């Protein structure tokens, strides 16, 4: 028998712990809250204003390079706070972001500009080694690293090596001890980051090519890397000559002065590579077949391309035409989204490790942050002293954004401008989340929309934007006129404007 009695428990009205607030009982009947919407809107406005007030994205700038930064890389094998950069004077530096200082450097690593840097993998048995899981359905050709300098130990040793494979706990990773750098001096060099530093450091290995290298990308699991020069070359770290050369036309010798600008491995579908060439093409390759897969010619050259880390088929391209494009690599005939906003050539881009956002650095001296699938930038970062941004990057915890620019500084920015650094109280976090929720909910309405949208940019950028808009309008107008006043005989299908998503694509080749 259940007897209803009046029961008042103190527990219902007291906080569960000394730090938490007393529970408040409320009547949730909407009739009792007649002004819920206006109140919420006001809160949303306040949240948006607070967000703007607290947005101080610039964290620090790391000085050290004597020339502009033209390449940068993160240590994907686990060193969260470790990054490396290469500058125009041929210096390579490794930085620790947490300490905000340079850990290692080598001056004169290359004669001339360092065009690309990439961390190598920890060798088998080395700390920080990450292995692909066996039995994931994908047949991975295992390439075992032999000790450097060893010219082939023989089969038995390699098999022994295989047994030593182990899954590395990613949280304890210190990162890779070696770094690869490539320069315009037609060499790729492998350096030991843990060893000596300074001017007279000898590389562990030097790989010589026939022409200057523009970009380097390391395979996710195997000790092989790809370089971009006049063609894509695949190298084994232990061998001084390339394993193979990938070209779109295997017969052509690309003597016309065209070169590959950028090359990128897909980190998940690990045998797939993408490259962009100075001939305005974006090309895909597969190591399994050793062939090119197809390519697409765009209207302007692509300066950098990156595969999405969590969505393997998605490819992001930073284009010279001030825009960014995402592709699905299975259908290169159309872009999936155009990201407009920069007023200068986009020199670099990088996905956030969440795969839902990315950053781009541009010749217009700004860094912009984007959400995948949204055509306008979420935020724009700039400082007075920052020059052309040639390289930009997300850190591996998705909290910071790095930029390397012409002014020889490496800058650290928050990925979310309004984030608070340091320890955040749980309640504070909850409030922040609530404010974010409100901003998102009301982000399209009234003042909230305006606050969310509006960014005050330096005058030159602002003017450039205005100019760009004018130019685009004029161009559109001209096109319209052309269509409207076309002679009668003209095929109407030819007059049709090209779909915006396909506008940047000139030709698709298979």
């Amino acid at each position, binding site marked *: 028998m259940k007897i209803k009695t009046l029961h008042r428990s103190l527990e219902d009205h007291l906080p569960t712990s000394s730090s938490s607030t007393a529970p408040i009982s409320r009547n949730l009947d909407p009739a009792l809250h007649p002004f819920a919407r206006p109140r919420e809107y006001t809160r949303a406005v306040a949240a948006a204003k607070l967000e703007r007030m607290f947005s101080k994205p610039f964290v620090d700038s790391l000085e050290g390079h004597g020339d502009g930064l033209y390449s940068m890389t993160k240590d994907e094998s686990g060193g969260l706070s470790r990054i490396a950069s290469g500058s125009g004077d041929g210096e390579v530096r490794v930085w620790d972001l947490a300490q905000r200082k340079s850990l290692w450097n080598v001056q004169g690593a290359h004669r001339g500009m360092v065009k690309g840097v990439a961390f190598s993998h920890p060798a088998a048995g080395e700390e920080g080694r990450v292995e692909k899981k066996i039995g994931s359905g994908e047949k991975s050709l295992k390439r075992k690293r032999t000790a450097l300098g060893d010219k082939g130990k023989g089969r038995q040793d390699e098999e022994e090596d295989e047994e030593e494979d182990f899954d590395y706990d990613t949280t304890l990773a210190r990162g890779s001890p070696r770094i690869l750098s490539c320069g315009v001096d037609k060499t790729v060099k492998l350096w030991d980051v843990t060893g000596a530093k300074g001017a007279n450091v000898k590389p562990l290995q030097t790989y010589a090519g026939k022409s200057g290298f523009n970009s380097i990308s390391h395979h996710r699991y195997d000790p092989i890397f790809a370089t971009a020069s006049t063609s894509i070359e695949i190298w084994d770290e232990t061998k001084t000559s390339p394993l193979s050369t990938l070209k779109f036309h*295997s017969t052509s010798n690309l003597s016309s002065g065209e070169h590959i600008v950028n090359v990128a491995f897909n980190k998940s579908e690990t045998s797939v590579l993408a490259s962009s060439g100075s001939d305005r093409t974006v090309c895909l390759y597969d190591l399994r077949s050793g062939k090119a897969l197809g390519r697409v010619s765009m209207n302007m050259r692509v300066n950098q391309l990156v595969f999405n880390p969590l969505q393997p088929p998605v490819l992001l391209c930073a284009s010279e035409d001030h825009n960014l494009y995402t592709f699905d690599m*299975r259908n290169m005939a159309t872009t999936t989204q155009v990201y407009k906003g920069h007023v200068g050539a986009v020199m670099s881009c990088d996905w956030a490790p969440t795969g839902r956002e990315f950053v781009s650095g541009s010749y217009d001296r700004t860094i912009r942050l984007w959400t995948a699938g949204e055509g306008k930038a979420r935020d724009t970062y700039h400082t007075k002293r920052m020059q052309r941004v040639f390289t930009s990057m997300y850190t591996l915890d998705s909290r910071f954004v790095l930029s390397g620019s012409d002014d020889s500084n490496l800058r650290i920015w928050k990925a979310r401008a309004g984030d608070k650094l340091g320890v955040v109280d749980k309640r504070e976090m909850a409030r922040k989340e*609530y404010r*974010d929720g409100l901003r998102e909910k009301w982000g399209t309405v009234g003042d909230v929309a305006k606050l969310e949208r509006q960014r005050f940019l330096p005058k030159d950028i602002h003017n450039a934007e205005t100019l760009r808009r004018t130019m685009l309008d004029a161009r559109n107008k001209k096109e319209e006129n052309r269509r409207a006043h076309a002679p009668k005989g003209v095929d109407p299908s030819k007059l049709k404007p090209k779909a915006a998503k396909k506008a940047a694509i000139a030709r698709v*080749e298979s």
Partner: protein
Amino acid sequence: MVRTGRQPRTQPQSTTTTKSSKPSKKSKPSTSSKKAASAALSAPSTGLDVYSYAPRKTKARGDVDPESRASFQSKGKGKRQQASEDEEEDDELMGFRGGGIVEFTGVKPKGLKMGMDSDEEFVGEGDEDEEIDSDEAEESEDDFKPKKGGKTKASSRSNAQPSAEIDLDEDEIDFDDEQGEGFIDASEMLDMGVYDSDDSEIDSGSDDGSDASDDEEMASASASDDDSEVDSEYEGALDKLGSFVEQLESRKRKNEGDDSPFGDDSGKKKKRVVLKERTEAYPEGEFVAVGAHDGEDDGKLNLDDLLSSFADSKNPRLAALRKTLKPLASSTTPSSSTSTSHLKSSGPLAAPLPGRLQDKIDREAAYEKTKEETDKWNETVRRMKGESGLGVEGARHERLTLPLMGGEGDVRRAPNAAEWSAKFQPTNALESSIQSLLHAGAMSSSDLRKAEATALASLDPADVAARQAELRQQRDLMYRAERKAKRVAKIKSKAFRRIHRKAKGKEGDSGLSLEDLEEMDRMDGGDRVGEEQNRMEIQRARERATLKHSSKGGRWSRTDIGGLEGLDDERNSAVREMVKRNEMLRKRIRGEQEGEESADEWAEGDSEDELGEEVGVEGIRRRAMDELKSLEDKEAAFAANQPKVKGVVGMKFMQDAIKRGDRKALLEATELQERLERMGEQAVKGLDEEESPLSLSEQVQGNSGRRVFGPSSGNKSIATPSSAEPASLPSTSTTNHTTKLNAPLSISTRSPLSTNATPTSTDESNPWLADAASASKLSRKSNKATVGKDSRDASRLADKVARHKSRQSDAREAEQDDATVDIDPSNVLASAKAKAQPQITAPSKEKKKGAAGPTTKATMEEDERSSDEDDEEQHEAQRGRGQLAFKQRELVARAFAGDNVVADFEAEKRREIERDAPREEDNTLPGWGSWGGKGAKKSKHAKKFITKIPGIAPSARQDATFTNVIISEKKDKKAQKYLLKDLPFPYTSAAQHEHKLRTPMGPEWSTSTILRDQTLPSVLIKPGVTIRPVDKKV
């Protein structure tokens, strides 16, 4: 194609032969066609169609076609071939396709050339003619295929022409090099022993050179397949065969006679017997050994001859070469020189494609493969995007938690039993021994599966299917029953349980429902349903007998007996009565034995000791008379032995009062007696008359749902005649009664029946007024007057009928009135005045009455009456009729007197339109900026001060077409701020967006869990940890 340094066999002949081939064909189409037919037929009949067909297919498009080549090299090509087969018809339509391709590839198309040479070929089989190199080249060259036989072949060949798929981008590629010219079967090259430097010579070569061997092959093939040929070539086939054989023989003879490989040429081309000039003893060439011609090889060099030199060498590379050349070598041996022998080999050696084309094909194939691989990531991508639909229900987002756990996304799945068992490996002795035992006893899962398979194999497949279907059905039924049981088990209602228990008990031992039984009956023809119904019937009867069905009875018998010990008799009688009533009601519900029995019941209900045979009205009457009589007797006796009363009662006024009461009672009694007597008479009459069954019951108060049974129904028969003779009722007596019974005065003056008979009693200026006001009101009042007066049953009944009728008609009329009436104040006023008269007079009458009746009681009654009247009138007014309604209407009319609503509205709208209309405002300040006075010119700047206000033109207004509506064209500038131009991205309708904004989000309006769910970010990142790229497909 390999170029040889050797001189072609016949330089001049090359042109002549091609030319001569045409007339030769024309001259003997029958033979050539036959040949072709035999060639076509021989392939399938010898069961070699696979070989003969496949290379044709692949090579049909001409020698340099990259696509066909690719089919040899890449798997991806197979698909394309399929696709091209689908386009069979298209290709057939486009006869010139072959030419088109060839044009693109930059190779001189054989088909095209042949078209120039022989129209016949080109038109007849536009797509199958471009065989320069292939094995059929030899055959097809002069095979002129009959359309009938060759059609399938032609179409199948045309299949292999995906010419349209080739991208013309590559046209910059230089194809002038001989590489692209074609690929020639190595065996054939060797066969011919001669290499031509020109295409045309290949033709000619195939025309003549190879024909020697080929025709022989053909002959043998056709000879072996005579019957099949006859089948197809039924028209004079035998004759043709004869001539054909003859011709072959002659040709052979010629061949034998002529050593040279071109010997058959002369046989073929009868008209041109121009033998070429021979400059050497035998055809020279780098592969033609000296004196080779004296053997049976006709001077040709076999591949074997070349290979023999390194047959014994140990060099592994040579061995490999030997291996690859083996099929070719065997094909060249004359022993196996049938038409199919070289087809059996691994196929022709293709000349390599131009690098670019080869690349293109490779790329396409590789891309397809890579796409396939990449497609496996689709599910992962969906999850990473948060679009997989696996998120928590009602959650705002599908959350992605990073870093991914175990590299396989945030999804972990435990393997199921089957996976475990498949993977199971015994680790210790016990497990392994058990497994070995299982194996020994053939009990392992695979063994069992095998055993099952064998058992199934022995059964009839139809039988197996039927059994499976049955099993499936059973399983399905079981599943459903299970589901139902589960659902029922969840029900907590006690009442349901009780009923359910009863229902369970009620169901027979079989525990089956009627439907089930019916089904079973249908199956075996039994009568289970009938039995079951009988059983249930008995059970029901038994239950009725035990009174258990009556909860009331049950309660009486169960609970109350103990507590009411002392009232035994009373209780018993009450229970009995209740039971009886219950039974009777049940009967009535069942519709059994209405009529007399029911009346009887009622009679019995009144007095149980009365005799049962007294029936109906007669009984009632008699009883009433008896009662009256007994009362009178009693009174008389009382009066007789009345002792002298003392005290107050004995006083005079009291005595008077008593007497007056007595007199009244007496009057009543006599009246009753009278009426009863009359009833008696009429009952006799009425019994004769037909009684409709409906008349037994009577509608009460016009409520058709409520019926009165019993005495009133019996009285109806009396009521009808009584209405016929209204005058017989003494009006005086009625007045008496009515006054007592609080009847309104206005009716009591006349009998209700008479009012019904003459409805139009008042003076009417307005026809609908009269109806509404007087008739209904009066009838209403009469209702009041009669209700509750049990002595006047007859009149009451009649009244009821009349009232019902009148009410219906009144209602109808009222409705009509309401529909049609227009308020016309003057008219209404007039009628109201007319009506006011009786209204005023009525009270005065009452006053008179009141004066007549001196008691205070009368005044009390009056008050009540008047209040009653008021109520009535209120009611009437509400229903839109009656005087009060008119009063109100009048009131309304007065209240809104002078309100010109329509005109006002129109004026207002006009004003609105004018205000919004575009206009010009003159802002000039007179006297400023210009000269004034006489002769002053108008300023140039006058225009400057005129502001044009672009309003909204009257025709452009939103309410332009609506006469009765004003839609404001003003815009709320403040609200404008909050209005959106476009619908934001994720929403597909404004309603969605509205809903989103309407649902508040915050601690005040939602619980903490919901709030958390609403506000939690869609990507949760563990701080300070590297987020790795995804590495496993979900």
